[in-house]
């Protein structure tokens, strides 16, 4: 049994300690907004926040995050920066297929939390771990800047 604090709710899960957080979220808790992309922390589709930091949930065992605050895309609108990021994403029509965008939004929200006015280099550094096969990078960059301006 593992107890997790996800989006300010407590969940007790009957999974082994080494279960990746990704599958606990998706298959056990039923929060499917966090996506599976590569399974080895190369694409960023599974990004969630743990105590405010971006974490690749596909390689994070549940035992490592028990007792810590986990936030997923489903609750990011409760964070004022996250809400601004979502708004910017919608205003600039960033999404295409949309599959990677949960991870992109989680990564962008973390970036703006630590660097409210990021430079292009900051954006490159923070976002280059998140792959988008639809190639929405230019719009992601602009949306991050817009979300930063709207502070």
């Amino acid at each position: 049994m593992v107890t997790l604090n996800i989006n300010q709710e407590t969940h007790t899960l009957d999974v082994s300690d080494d279960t990746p957080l990704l599958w606990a979220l998706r298959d056990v808790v039923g929060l499917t907004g966090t996506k599976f992309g590569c399974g080895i922390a190369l694409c960023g589709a599974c990004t969630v926040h743990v105590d405010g930091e971006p974490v690749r949930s596909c390689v994070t065992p549940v035992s490592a995050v028990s007792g810590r605050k986990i936030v997923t895309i489903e609750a990011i609108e409760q964070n004022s920066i996250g809400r601004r990021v979502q708004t910017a994403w919608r205003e600039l029509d960033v999404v295409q297929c949309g599959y990677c965008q949960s991870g992109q939004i989680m990564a962008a929200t973390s970036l703006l939390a630590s660097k409210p006015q990021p430079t292009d280099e900051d954006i490159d550094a923070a976002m280059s771990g998140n792959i988008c096969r639809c190639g929405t990078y230019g719009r992601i960059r602009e949306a991050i800047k817009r979300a930063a301006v709207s502070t």
Partner: protein
Amino acid sequence: MINMTAKLLASKPTRRHFLQGTGGLILGFTVPSFGAEEARNERPPESAVGQATRNVTNESAGLAPNAFIRIDRSGVVTLIVHKVEMGQGTFTSIPMLLAEELEIDLNNVKLEQAPADNSLYADPLLGGQVTGGSTSIRGAWKPLREAGATARVMLITAAARQWKVDPATCTASKGVVTHTATGRTAGYGQLVEAAARLPVPKQVELKPSSEFELIGKPIKRLDSPDKTNGRAQFGIDVRLPNMSVAAVALSPVPGGRLHSIDEQKALTIKGVRQVLRLDHAVAVLADHMAAARLGLSAVAPTWSDGPNATVTTQSIVASMAEASRKQGAIARNDGNAQSTIDKAAKKVEAVYEMPFLAHATMEPVNCTVDLRGDTCEIWVGTQVPALAQGVAAKITGLPLDKVRVHNHYIGGGFGRRLEVDFVALAVEFAKQAKGPVKFIYTREEDIQHDMYRPYYLDRIAAGLDANGTPVAWSHRITGSSIMARFAPAAVVNGIDSDAVEGAKDQPYKIPNVRVEYVRHEPPIATAFWRGVGATHNVFVVESFIDELAATAKSDPLEYRRALLRHSPRMLAVLNLAAEKAGWSQPLPKISSERLGRGIAVQFAFGSYMSQVSEVAVSSTGEVHVRRVVCAVDCGQVINPDTVVAQIESGIVFGLSAALWNEITVDKGRVQQSNFSDYRVMRMREAPRIEVHIIKSTDSPGGIGEPGTSAAAPSLTNAIFAATGARIRKLPVAATDLRA
């Protein structure tokens, strides 16, 4: 010409299950199949997919309804969308077409995914229920507007009769009919019952483009909110009561067989429910994917590799090169290319090669099946719902109407989800499963058991006159025929229309042109990939024309211009891209890197496009694409921002592949496995992209794929300008570009 039928839905559903509702006006509209004269006129000239599928469609001649509108008594309009949304924006642009003529707020259109039905939801250009080939808007452009206009006319007529006034004195706007003189109004919902009893007008007048209120205006994507809050449902997100999640392993060598497994060991793992085996695959079903994957490791499958155990990329290419020396089927033969080349003042020859490519969609391949005795339900994101239904019916022995396909948002299609191999696998396994199962490929399975963009080997030659002008052109393509498997009727006289697309109709005015196709099938499965035939042939044609320009010591832009004088739309995009890129200006030098600019132009998918790329090549040979300027004429634009987005997307997709991607085979096994060795473009590597749209009121062209097909030659021509190295074999990474 569309054929409309109207009926009133009583409380009892009178039509298929998906039309159940609260009652109201149902309009079924039919799209002419390809045999119809009107459709022929609508068909964009020289379109790849049009050509590719014309013959297929002729077999299913006649009119077939393919989409439905429902307006209920509360005025809500439901559009059952015959296309799937995989990022290309059609879940916004298709309802825009309807709303434009129906005079409703776009926000009042509810979308429903069409169920699997090839007769109801066939694409007029493709002849089947297919989302692909950049056809969605081309096919929907006229019928969707006609459907909206017809419904509007009926609603206005219904109101006018109630008010005993001339319909011509009434107008419709925002879902309300108004009698202008008296100001009387009635909402569509109040009118649907009366409207449904009216005869369907045989002809309706469509708005001229000058009166468009929605079409051509930037409209925010309707799927954006759900795709930014985690609520969008992709196939992989399906959850059903008592569902298992399954990890699968397929024979690493195509044609291989499962030899042994350790089932008991897997069953001892917490959460593992069942181990299923097929001849060529094994699946472990569990409470969740983590347990399934642990179970799969424990199963430790061993394989008998079978007849392909020694296949390598080198063996495939060697046999392809051998095949390419013989004459192929003749796709085009103007004048006498060979003898003219032999006599020409200058002869230029080259061999171009393009690798196998994986699709690597962000959403790995997956399929959920609930097979219970006499019904089969499938949850999947597919570009071909009817094919998915068909393969499941075949495997289960059930009639089609007992197989229900629930389509979903697709987390990247790019052609991968035109295939139903993974649906077939899931249904085969489901025959042994207890309860519903969601099968998910790991990224490794997804890349190693993809169906790949074919390897192509092209022999190309040209003869130049004393001025350097081409007088003859000969192009022989060797590669797999996807059409022969996917749509056999589209292969005529040995010519796969997809394999020669962009080559047979190369745009340059040259008096002697010969194009041949040699079909050569490798032992690994091949399939469509974004940009299809054009992605292959535009690269070869646009690279080689650049070679000819270099041979003639001519500017690549001027050289193309001189050969495109007959095509004003080609010239217009070429000139616009060059102008916006500052073609005549020197590149701003920023470092010791070698800089270059390359240009490419194409007509593909009914759209004209030119791209200019700027690259910087480092002394160690790393290529950085700094900027891509694109000019496009895709006819009437529906949603301009979607056009821009699709081009940005297509360019990044095409550049990733051109720079880095290849699938290679050793000992019959695909060697790549994940984003570590199948490198895709990331934020810091992405170029600045500028898109310039030429205004047009011509019928719309496709836009999902042209960006991809023009990307590689524009890039490699820029690399040539920067380094003098001509890239004749993709990916670029295979060439040593060190200074």
